[in-house]
């Protein structure tokens, strides 16, 4: 997040169950977890981390509604006022024939809108350098990270003790 360097203390676990146990312990001890990194989505992690449900699907609905409205109104305007043409004696405003394109525009807008939003809110774009704590996090390690920038040594000791007690296989410090 911040441009200036941050001191991060992190521990690696070998199994997602150990990770979940550790997060619960951290919650009980009121430790302030900076982030958790996993190689795959771990189910049941979000509630214990206190992550609120993603609102991406609500945005998806809004984007889809915009697409439907835009597609339908564009066709309506073109065929009733901009350049009305008679096709086979049908009315200019031939609503049933507009349905397929309206549907496709709904899907198109929802999909692109959600995907662009996803990458934007995650701060992910081509060329963004990943702030990776450890290369094995995308392989088989489960990581809990604490921000210890400017923290007193006693706090760092305390956190290291937490990692040892909860079965972390490695504990490291990294500036990022």
């Amino acid at each position, binding site marked *: 997040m911040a441009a200036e360097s941050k001191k991060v203390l992190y521990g690696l676990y070998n199994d997602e169950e150990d990770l979940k146990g550790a997060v619960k312990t951290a919650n009980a001890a009121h430790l302030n977890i900076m982030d958790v990194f996993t190689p795959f*989505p771990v189910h049941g992690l979000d509630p214990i981390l206190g992550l609120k449900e993603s609102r991406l699907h609500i945005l998806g609905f809004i984007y889809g509604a915009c697409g439907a409205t835009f597609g339908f109104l564009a066709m309506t305007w073109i065929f009733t006022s901009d350049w009305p043409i008679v096709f086979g004696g049908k009315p200019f405003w031939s609503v049933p024939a507009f349905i*397929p394109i309206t549907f496709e525009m709904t899907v198109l807008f*929802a*999909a692109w809108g959600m995907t662009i939003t996803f*990458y934007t*809110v995650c701060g992910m774009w081509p060329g963004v350098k*990943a702030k990776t704590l450890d290369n094995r996090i995308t*392989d*088989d390690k489960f990581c809990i990270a604490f921000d210890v920038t400017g923290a007193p040594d006693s706090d760092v000791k305390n956190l290291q003790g937490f990692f040892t007690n909860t079965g972390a296989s490695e504990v490291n410090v990294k500036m990022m």
Partner: protein
Amino acid sequence: MSQAVAPVRHVLIEGNKSYHNITEDLCTPTEKAPSREWIIAFSIASAFLGLYIFAIVWTVWKGIGSWNLNRTVNWGWDITNFVWWIGIGHAGTLISAILLLFRQRWRTGVNRAAEAMTIFAVICAGQFPVFHMGRVWLAFFIFPFPNTRGPLWVNFNSPLLWDVFAISTYFSVSLLFWYTGLVPDLATVRDRASGFRRKMYEIFSFGWTGSAKHWQRHEALSLVLAGISTPLVLSVHTIVSFDFATSVVPGWHTTIFPPYFVAGAIFSGFAMVQTLMVITRKVLKLEEYITLNHIESMNKVIVLTGTIVGVAYLTELFISWYSGYIYEQFAFYNRVFGIYWWSYFGMMFCNVVSPQLFWSRKIRRSIWWTFFLSIVVNIGMWFERFVIIATTLARDFLPSSWSYYSPSWVEICIFAGTIGLFFVCYMIFTRVAPVVAIAEIKAILKVAGDQYIGPNATKQVHGHSHSETVKKDH
């Protein structure tokens, strides 16, 4: 592991695997030098791609007159091939989206490759209508945009324009779905790579870290994309069938077309997935991830959809007789016994008769039978589109304009060439990205093993010990 073992579900990942083994197995194909088989196959595919480029340049240079289309049969191999490729392009989204919503875990082994296949098949499909336009440099006229020609707009009432929207939406949404699923796996490859490769994967993995919040959003996005891709995939082939069904040509003007085309698309798409998977799992040594159980599940889908297609063929014949409308009756009589009778019987044999062999468990689980029948089905589905298009047009309302159509060498080369285009894309994909979704496989590793454990085993058991049990059971 003392609980009663109920093998309700098959094991989806064979062998005794840790998370790290999965990473190793699935990333290695992108990391080592290509095998000799790959190089030979790639050279052949590239040769066909060269043929494609040659035939396309010829077409554009000489004009559409170099094809054998005539005034009566104005859609021939081009639209046949277009519908064939689009149909093949349906399996990917079906596997990723519909099977995700139905919670079919076996999709995980094959979804990535099937989605890639979808994208490449749609690219191949798109070539045909575009080059059939003749003056291909004006192809952008099909998009509605304010222009200096009036502004003159496209006809929003035409199914051909719906096709433009449906296929371009389908292509771009499939691409988003596939690529978003690929990003975490590209990050896995990135974190194992060094030097130039690492730089490239850094760009393509968008800075993925695996943060819990990102995973949560990623899952939300995948689920909604799956949800909207499901009606999308059904709409695409429905709209393709409207190209025919909204005309007033006997043999085309039928309400059965949308469901019949969708079933046929799933049928041919799964056949192509089988063709590719049987080779891919062997060449990339992925037999433990794309197991016989996966192949059997897909064969079950093939026998189901093949039978639906068969019912549709018979319904068409019955309705044409029952309608009492002589033009309709003639169209179908002509389809079966007319000048193109061989394509009708080819279609019936390949699509309706041959998949019935899959009722036998032994054949469903045989690699050779699967491969052979998948090719037969691919051929049969090509015949189906040819039957619908060519037989109908060659014998229209006016006997004086009846004609016969057979392709020119240019059309044959373009078709053979798109197969080269397809395989070149697919084979490059197998070299640069993991063919099986790594993160998704890891997420089901324990569950796919837990399927062997009785209902009392609610407590999560740690990986390694029980995968041994699973292996013994298997």
